[in-house]
């Protein structure tokens, strides 16, 4: 069978090189190598170091996809070097591959980056169980399989940083906690043994750290090598804020609620009305743009909105299916 045949093909690698203590600017080194169908990306990194340039630097440890040390980017795609098969990379991108660290601006030496911001944010969400544990309990503290399922595999995170450095908001806003920290927060929020539920949620809700600043781009879900799906956990945290009564009124929470109100009234969105509801008096800052859009026929007044047909069905469903309160 063909799956047992080892094949070889030539690949051109463009490899990011930089030594922060010597180089003024980074540069790319080109290597052409014969790659076999048996190899993973880490094998290529090893061969570059062992056969071509001993000064080439990268992190590696477990070689089993659990330590998270070897995460890098191939053609912009975050990947765990020890887990990613070269054949799959060639299938995705062809025979010209660019190897880069997870974050170029945090590069220290070649693939090695300073992950300080990642760990700082990770620590800030109190990534541990907070619980009054009896020293000599009389019974086991049982967690049922159903309760454990609530973690939604958030506990599979290996802190590799792939999602954090794929997140566009982390690049723009240094206060933003990032997808890994939020997924970790969810992991403890969803744990029935944790007693700090409310406190942690309240902290996450503070604007500066940006639980509401996620742009919903799904880069984190795409980047995660363990299928943790961080954006799903961010959505769950949003829902928790409402269901636990922790959500306070801010532009983001009002905006989420405005969707329900508008749908109940029109079936569709009342775009102008929603911005007014979400922004409150801050609406004034949108006036210049609103005028410009109005003159171009881009704003429909509430009385001009084409409501959904069979609107009574929608009203009925909103009344009977809505579970959230604010």
């Amino acid at each position: 069978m063909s799956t047992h045949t080892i094949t070889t093909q030539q690949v051109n690698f463009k490899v990011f090189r930089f030594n922060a203590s010597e180089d003024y600017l980074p540069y790319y080194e080109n290597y052409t190598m014969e790659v076999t169908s048996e190899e993973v990306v880490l094998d290529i990194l090893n061969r570059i170091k062992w056969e071509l340039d001993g000064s080439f630097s990268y992190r590696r440890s477990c070689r089993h996809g659990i330590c998270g040390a070897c995460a890098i980017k191939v053609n912009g795609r975050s990947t765990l070097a020890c887990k990613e098969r070269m054949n799959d990379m060639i299938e995705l991108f062809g025979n010209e591959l660019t190897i880069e660290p997870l974050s170029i601006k945090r590069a220290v030496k070649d693939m090695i980056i300073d992950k300080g911001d990642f760990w700082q944010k990770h620590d800030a969400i109190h990534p541990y169980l907070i619980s009054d544990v009896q020293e000599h309990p009389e019974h086991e503290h049982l967690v049922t399989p159903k309760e454990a399922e609530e973690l939604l595999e958030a506990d599979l995170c290996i802190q590799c940083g792939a999602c954090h450095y794929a997140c566009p908001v982390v690049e723009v806003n240094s206060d933003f906690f990032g997808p890994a920290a939020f997924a970790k927060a969810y992991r403890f929020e969803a744990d029935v043994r944790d007693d700090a539920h409310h406190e942690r949620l309240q902290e996450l809700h503070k604007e500066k750290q940006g639980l509401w600043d996620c742009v919903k781009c799904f880069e984190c879900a795409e980047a995660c090598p363990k299928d943790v799906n961080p954006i799903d956990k961010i959505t769950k945290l949003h829902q928790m804020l409402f269901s636990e009564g922790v959500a306070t009124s801010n532009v983001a929470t009002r905006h989420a609620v405005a969707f329900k109100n508008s749908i109940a009234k029109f079936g569709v969105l009342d775009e102008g009305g929603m911005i007014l509801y979400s922004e409150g008096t801050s609406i004034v800052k949108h006036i210049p743009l609103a005028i410009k859009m109005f003159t171009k026929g881009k704003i429909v007044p509430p009385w001009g909105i084409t409501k959904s047909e069979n609107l009574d069905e929608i009203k009925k469903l909103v009344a009977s299916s809505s579970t959230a309160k604010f």
Partner: protein
Amino acid sequence: MKKLKYALFTGCTAKQSTPEQYMSTFAVAEKLGIELVELVEASCCGASHLQDYDDFLSLVLNARNIAYAEKHGLTMVTICNTCQLNTAMTKHRLDNNSELKEKVNEKLKEVGLEYKGTSNIIHFLYAIIDDIGLDKIKEMVVTPLSQFNIAPFYGCHNIRPSELQNESHKTAENPYNPRSLDDLIIACGGNSVDYVEKNKCCGFHVELQAPHTSAVLSGKAVAGAMDNNADWMVTPCPLCHLKLDTQTNHLSEAIGREIALPVLHMQQMLGLALGCSNEQLGFKHHIEKVNFI
């Protein structure tokens, strides 16, 4: 060949802040010989915001929209990336969780509807690539866009999460190296511009709560297209269009440099190539002047 017929879920934006997209969708469909049945009963998809607040309600409402497409026995075509995401996500969750599907159907039963899972949900871009084909589209071009460098802007919710997105269309898309929009540009006779930001986020969804983040992301996209000699940009998503077209002054301020490019909806680009009139394509609704027509 049998005439193509789809159930069209316009979403809210095409009926309000991007009327040019609504018009050009119908103009292009006529040229391509596609019959569109507009789902006038449909509600808003929740745009990933209702999902933050009331997940179950969003599932029920989206299942209702799909149920109407199913009643017509048609594939549902979307023209907004975020509608595509939320509708396809609903379908995926219901088709893979019979308990959840039953719960949703209990609600739909109250209004005499049922979600079955029989209609595919596909964005217009992929529908025409799959069902008409790029070669055929190329043959239909009457005004090749050969003098233009066109920068594709894909929009997140058509390409990520890729596992979900690739369920709806035959042409697999690599979110790190997407091809569909580039290929459509080439089929229209244009030169597709390669630039780093083409598959990145425009920041639309945090425009209210994080205006700076939002403006920087959009600003970098326009700047990236300009730096690679684009004459204009094209996008399949009306939300990306709103970010890129309507507030270039904010974007310029956020990234500290003057930027602006005309931005077309994919339907408008296709319409130009297929010989639709400028009136049909609604260019007068653009904020950034479409200066080349």
